[in-house]
C-alpha cells in the first residue's frame, strides 16, 4: 500500500476516497458480485467508522469465461479503482483516523490463493 496521504473533510459533507488496486499479472480477483455463490466477493468494510460510509462503487467487472465455469464469471484484473464515499458528521473531531479492510480472493487459470485481507488506514482533518 502506498503512503497514506491525509484526508481533508468538511463536516456534514461527503468525501470520495479512491482506492487504487493493482492485481499481479496473470491473476484476477472475483468482483464484488460474483455470479457463483461459492466464489468469494471483493469486499470493502470499515471498522468502527468515524466517518459514516455512504456507499462503495466498484468498476464494471470483466465477464470472462473461465475453464471451470459454465457461464462467464465477473472478475477484476490489472489496475482498477474502488471509490468509497464517506460523510463527516457534524460533531466529528478536528482530527481522526479510521481503518478498514479490503477482502479479496485471487486466482489464475491454474490455481487459487486463499482469501486475504488488505488493511486500509485513513487519517483525516475535519473543518467546518
Amino acid at each position, binding site marked *: 500500500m502506498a503512503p497514506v496521504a491525509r484526508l481533508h473533510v468538511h463536516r456534514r*459533507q461527503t468525501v470520495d476516497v479512491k482506492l487504487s488496486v493493482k492485481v499481479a499479472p496473470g491473476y484476477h480477483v472475483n468482483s464484488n458480485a460474483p455470479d457463483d455463490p461459492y466464489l468469494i466477493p471483493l469486499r470493502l468494510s470499515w471498522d468502527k467508522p468515524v466517518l459514516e460510509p455512504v456507499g462503495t462503487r466498484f468498476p464494471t467487472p470483466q465477464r470472462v469465461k473461465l475453464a471451470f465455469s459454465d457461464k462467464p464469471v465477473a472478475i477484476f484484473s490489472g489496475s482498477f479503482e474502488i471509490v468509497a464515499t464517506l460523510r463527516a458528521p457534524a460533531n466529528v473531531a478536528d482530527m481522526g483516523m479510521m481503518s478498514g479492510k479490503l477482502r479479496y480472493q485471487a486466482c489464475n487459470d491454474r*490455481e487459487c490463493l486463499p482469501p486475504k485481507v488488505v488493511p486500509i488506514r485513513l487519517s483525516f482533518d475535519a473543518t467546518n
Partner: protein
Amino acid sequence: MPAALRCTRSLWIVPALALCLGACSSFGTKAEAAENGVKPAAQRKAAPDFTLEDSHGQKVKLSSYRGKVVVLDFWATWCGPCKIEIPWFMEFEQELKPRGLVVLGVSMDDDGWSVVRPYVEQHKINYRILLGNDQVAGLYGGVDAMPTTFLIDRSGRIAAMHQGLVSKDEFKKQILQLLDARADLRAPFAGVPAFFTAGGAR
C-alpha cells in the same frame, strides 16, 4: 450537494508467490515433477499422518489407508480450478478403487461444513471429503494455493505433489504407476511409531 473531495490510496494485491515457492521446494520443483513424474521410491518422504472428520462426522486417519494409493487433494469450494479436477477424481475413485485407490479431498474452506456439505451434495462427489485445518495444511508445507494434490504410495510415502491444475492424463499415468508398484509395508507414515506399522510386513 457540496463538491466531494477526492483522495487516492493505492493498494497492491500481490499473491504470496514467495511462500508458494518455499512450500514447493520441500517436495521438489515443478520442473522436476514435470520431468520425472513420480519420485523414485528411495527419494520419497513419509506422508505426515493426521486425523480429520469427514462429511458424515466420522474420524478419518490417513495412516489407516496403508497399503492403498491415496490421492490427497487440498481444495476449497471457492477454487475454480479445483472444480475442474473433481470429476476426474470421481472417475478415478470409481474406476480404480478395486485396484487399491483412495481419493481424499481435504476442504480448506473457512466456513466449514455449512458450505462444504451442500457443495458435496450438489456435485455428487463420490469420494471422501474431510474438513481440513491450518495445522494439517502446515504438515504438508502450508498449502498456499489450491488445488494442491499429493499422491501417496502404498507405503505411505509422498510420491508426487502438484500445486495447481495439472492434466487428467498426467494424474492417471502417475496413479496407475503407483497402483502397479509393490508396497514396502515397513515404511511408516510420519508421526506413526515404527513399532505400530512394522507388524504389517509382507
